[in-house]
């Protein structure tokens, strides 16, 4: 297949329009039951056409040897054993017993080489599918732009994280598509109306605002004003759903866990059910330069149950068919164990897991050598993965963004998706 490796190839202009036409007109009606799947309508609506994405970002760099690519009994294997999973023949680290039971819902890529050991560079490559500093948008913003319905009941791209990283997620797409970052489950700024206003007064003011706009907009170009008005609807939705940030169900917390990550995963489920198109949860703390093994016991102990519960819930409700799940870091960790029992940054041979949204399940893509020191089969990097996510979501990643008349390839034209993962 001939590929145009230029910066602004023009031959894909039409495909973008086609896929937009195909994904337009996705529905409202995704508001309703909050607790579990009490409303079948919600699940049915979400199951239908709308595709979405759940990102679990293991910040700092999870060790592939303590997770998806265990090598027990080898030189650098470390102290943990591998365990069988729900996929015959596939073994993962014993630190993930719950996730092991859900591996039939996921596939593992064991051959990532980003060629960088820098946190920021690695993270950017994994999010943007492009190497180095650039104004390219994160996957979440791309998905927000092309898949989030204009009448989305919640912001299209929500990131749950506790540390204030200043992410410019939208890049050249513009801030409408940027993530809305939630400080854990703490409500966003300015979510409370002025104390002295009753709810009724506030809602009258909102109606009055809309009324004010009608005359102004009746004879002016719609697009700008509509995009402005849409943000007030989103604000209203967030304010109306302040309960999202209030008490979480005790029953559900029993299942997810009461620690932060458990609560975030539960929040992520709620947001996806309620209509967010991209939800990203950051699990901090994998940068284990010292005491790698103790820290992984702790970190993965926190990760395992909530993640597998969330994955199971998505499957049970049918949402997994239309929800791409990606579990990733900015890099892995060195096979070689340092003198502080730590593992250092390792971008050249590591792993991630993904599934849902029609992605092939139970597959293992690529391999590292016996010691885990290099990729020996099917090497991929952030660019291949980026195409894979988008194509799983039904977005033609070989098309162009149209930014004020400027054509910019969505995915890196020099690489292709991992075909084995795409049905």
């Amino acid at each position, binding site marked *: 297949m001939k590929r*145009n490796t*230029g*910066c*602004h*190839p*023009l031959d894909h202009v039409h495909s973008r329009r086609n896929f937009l036409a195909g994904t337009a007109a996705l529905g409202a009606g995704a508001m309703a039951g909050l607790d579990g799947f009490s409303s079948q309508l919600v699940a049915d609506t979400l199951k239908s056409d709308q595709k979405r994405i759940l990102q679990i970002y293991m910040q700092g760099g999870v060790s592939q040897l303590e997770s998806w690519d265990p090598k027990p009994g080898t030189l650098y294997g470390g102290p943990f054993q591998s365990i069988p999973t729900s996929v015959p023949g596939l073994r993962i680290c014993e630190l993930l017993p719950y996730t092991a039971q859900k591996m039939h819902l996921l596939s593992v890529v064991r051959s990532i080489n980003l060629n960088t050991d820098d946190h920021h560079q690695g993270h950017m490559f994994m999010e943007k599918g492009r190497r180095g500093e650039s*104004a390219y948008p994160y996957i979440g913003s791309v998905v927000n732009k092309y898949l989030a319905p204009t009448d989305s009941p919640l*912001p299209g791209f929500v990131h749950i994280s506790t540390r204030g990283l200043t992410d*410019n997620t*939208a*890049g*050249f797409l*513009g*801030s*409408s*598509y*940027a993530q*809305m970052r939630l400080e854990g489950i703490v409500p*966003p*700024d*300015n*979510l*409370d*109306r*002025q104390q*002295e*206003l009753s709810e009724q*007064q506030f809602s*009258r*003011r*909102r109606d*009055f*605002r809309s*009324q*004010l*706009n009608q*005359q*102004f*907009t009746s*004879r*002016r*170009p719609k697009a*700008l*004003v509509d*995009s*402005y*008005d*849409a*943000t*007030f609807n*989103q*604000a209203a939705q*967030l*304010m109306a759903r302040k309960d999202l940030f209030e008490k979480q169900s005790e029953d559900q917390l029993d299942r997810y866990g009461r620690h932060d990550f458990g609560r975030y995963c539960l929040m992520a489920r709620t947001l996806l059910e309620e209509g967010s198109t991209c939800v990203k949860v950051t699990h901090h703390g994998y940068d284990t330069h010292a005491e790698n093994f103790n820290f992984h016991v702790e970190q993965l102990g926190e990760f395992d149950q909530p993640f597998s519960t969330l994955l199971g819930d998505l499957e049970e409700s049918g949402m997994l068919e239309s929800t791409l799940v990606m579990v990733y870091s900015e890099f892995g960790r060195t096979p070689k164990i340092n003198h502080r029992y730590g593992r250092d940054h390792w971008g050249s041979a590591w792993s991630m897991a993904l599934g849902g949204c029609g992605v092939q399940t139970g597959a293992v893509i690529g391999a590292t050598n016996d010691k885990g020191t290099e990729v020996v089969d099917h090497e991929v990097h952030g660019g291949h993965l980026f195409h894979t996510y988008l194509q799983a979501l039904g977005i033609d990643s070989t098309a162009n963004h149209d*930014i*004020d*008349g*400027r054509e910019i390839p969505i995915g890196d034209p020099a690489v292709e998706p991992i075909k084995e993962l795409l049905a």
Partner: protein
Amino acid sequence: MPLLGLLIAALLVQSAPAQDLPPLHQRIDQLVRATQGEMADTLAAPASDTEFVRRLYLDLTGRIPTHPAVQEFLNNPADNRREQLVDQLLSTPQHALRLQHTFDVMLMQRLPKKHVEPTAWQDYLFSSFLQNKSWKQLASELLSADGAEQATRGQARFLLDRNLNVDETVRDIGRFFLGRDLQCAQCHDHPSIGDYPQQHYYGLSAFIKRSYLFTDPDSKLASIGEKAEGDVKFTSVFTNEENSTVPKLLNLPAIEDPKPAEDPYVTKPDNKARGVPRYSRRQQLAPAMIADDNAAFRLNIANRLWALVMGRGLVEPLDMMHADNPPSHPELLDLLANDLRDHDYDIRYLVRQLVLSKTYQLSSEVAADASDPAAQLYLSSALKPLTPEQLAWSTMQAVGLIEQTRQAELAKLTADNEGFDPAQADQALQLERAVHKALESHVTTYIDVFASANSAFGPTAKQALFLENNELLSSWLEPANGNLLDQLNATASNDDAISTLYLVVLSRPARDEERQAMAQFLDTFAADRLTGLAQATRAILCSAEFRFNH
């Protein structure tokens, strides 16, 4: 010398008719009309005086007019009152501040501070625009500053706060001074834009490749040093053909180095000394950039000033000028660029002509039968989202905070300086600067919430929540010292309050149906009129009519 004589005669012939031509703004209108064809039937009406006065204040002073300013304009019986207002506003310090914000964002893209205090840079821009420095001079200063002297720190920010990183600097010189984003030509001739060969990127980089960031061991200040050697070589990733280049601006002649001097340095670079060569390649950049034979320089700034005033460039995107992306009005862009050159790159002259045009002075209400007019036909005035700075200043203007602050600062200055007289130009400026300083933190708050990474309009839920619920804004809507709510609260009737509210916040009288709607809204607060008035004000501050320049 007959040849010289001929040349002079030719020049005279060329320039003679210029005096008989109509002013630029009329020629602009002719050229815009010429492209409208039959669509001219759907031309919007001329902007009303109230529409015009709000638009002009926003465009020239970066904020809505005060209510007295609107009244003064409307009561001026002179036929040329619009022209008078234009001239009045162009000479205000607020206009200098507006251009400061515009060029700050354009040139620095809200990059974080690295080596230069942003205030030094902002002060430099403010003073430059206050004295109406030409773009030619401004550009020349930005591109030649080395930051070694305290006095030039501000203007050196363009280069220094990019760390003089060659890729970033070359790209941004291309974008902001030449209207060309040459980034894609870094690795190979641009694949789809024939006008952007790799040579252009490297020809430009050769001007600065020998320069480097020097940190003074004592003061720790970074400035720009330069070496006397170092050549630029480049290889296309497609053809593997190796090339080299001396400094060369686009397709203009290469600037060959002079014969090397025996001692190539004024100051030899080492750890303690900033290198200064006898022949500086970097110092060739400014003169080459602003030379009359560099058409890209004037086309770029003409297009950017047009976009600033009209809401879209004649070439869009602004940094993609090339043969395959022609201007919507080629003749017009040439006219603007050449006229600007003939007026010595006088920004104020061009802005004045643009806002005097009928094209600028159209209503933003499209004609009833033109539901979706093509923006590049200029059949109606574009909606321009307020910049974060415009929104902050306009909001503070509307709620009366600027006037409150001005009074407070005036009291301070009068107390500290005997005989302080704001009627004197220099002291008025001192007062204005004090007001800027006092309100700066609020502007920063707005920038934090409303600035977008790219300049396109990208409203967010976070911004709507801020407008609807933020406590700072709530505090501005409490009555105090003659501010807006104080005035509204003092009105005898809701009808009077509604009149004031519309005039102050939207700079126009309320229409009958608007009066009714707001009266009904206020009635629901009957028991608490003040709350009602504050909420009515807030609703208007959240409206699209307030959010856009229209």
